[in-house]
């Protein structure tokens, strides 16, 4: 599934049309709203990674298993933690290094399952050994029975400076 998504992205990124909204979280939210078909909650087929266009590099997709486990079905190129580069195996959120932007953004996936609505979060964290200011969103995707079967997440960030001598604790 990971490879299928990446193949779809390769075509989609080239053909993607620019969206008017400037913020990544709002673009993803707009896609999620558009994936509502009538009263039907957004399903994975209606909101694919490919549909995110250029943002696919900053997007990840989680598959929610029955046993309270979330595994990455897709990880955008810029989000892939260094230790995971070149590894094709599906990865669990629990295994994701927490000092990465992917770990930061995906760690709250339980909250989406509980609330059943999109959640945005932001703050300060670490990515590739550098402090960053990030903003992330996760949106739930439902199966035909109304159970959350997947979560799409997106995150962007920028480095922040930590001044020497600034007390942290």
């Amino acid at each position, binding site marked *: 599934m990971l490879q299928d998504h990446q193949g779809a992205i390769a075509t989609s990124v080239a053909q993607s049309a620019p969206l008017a909204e400037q913020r990544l979280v709002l673009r993803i939210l707009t896609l999620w709203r558009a994936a509502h078909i009538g009263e039907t909650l957004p399903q994975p087929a209606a909101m694919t990674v490919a549909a995110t266009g250029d943002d696919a590099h900053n997007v990840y997709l989680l598959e929610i298993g029955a046993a309270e486990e979330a595994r990455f079905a897709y990880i955008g190129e810029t989000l892939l933690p260094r230790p995971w580069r070149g590894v094709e195996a599906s990865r669990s959120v629990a295994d994701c290094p927490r000092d990465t932007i992917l770990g930061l953004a995906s760690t709250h996936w339980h909250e989406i399952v509980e609330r059943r609505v999109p959640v945005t979060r932001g703050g300060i964290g670490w990515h590739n050994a550098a402090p960053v200011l990030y903003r992330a969103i996760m949106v739930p995707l439902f199966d035909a029975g109304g159970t959350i079967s997947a979560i799409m997440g997106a995150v962007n960030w920028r480095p922040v400076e930590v001044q020497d001598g600034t007390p*942290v604790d």
Partner: protein
Amino acid sequence: MAPRSTSLARQSGVEGRGVPMLRAYEIQRLSGTRWVLDSVSDEKDVAITVAKSLMQSGRAPGGVRVMAVQTKPDGDFSQITLYRCMPGEPPPAEPAPRPKAEAKAEPKPETVHRDFKHSDGPPPVPQKPKSGHLMLSLKIAFGVGFAVVAFELLRILSR
């Protein structure tokens, strides 16, 4: 001092998987007569931006509002409305600074909440009683008289 990574991680909620938000901003949309949760944010500005974008979208609801929800450690919570937009209602205006003239014309309310630090004016200076001045004059006169008598006495004795 703890390493920076630990502190920053704690700040951002990395430690403790799925740390719930103590203060969340809920974007709610009006569906019929019910307010339905639309999405959640941990930042007020983002929540209001999301609410505005929802109203401007092609599937605009009957209304939208942003609630700040504060969850206490005991599980109890309180909420207040931060933003509200209904079709047909004028958009919520930014609070403008009150003109000075208008503020002057406004009479002060009779009942105001006071504490020890605030009052409407300087505290009244306690008036000294008038008898105080008389006593002071008497003391001075007595002192002068005593000095004169003592001087005369010394002069007599020195002869």
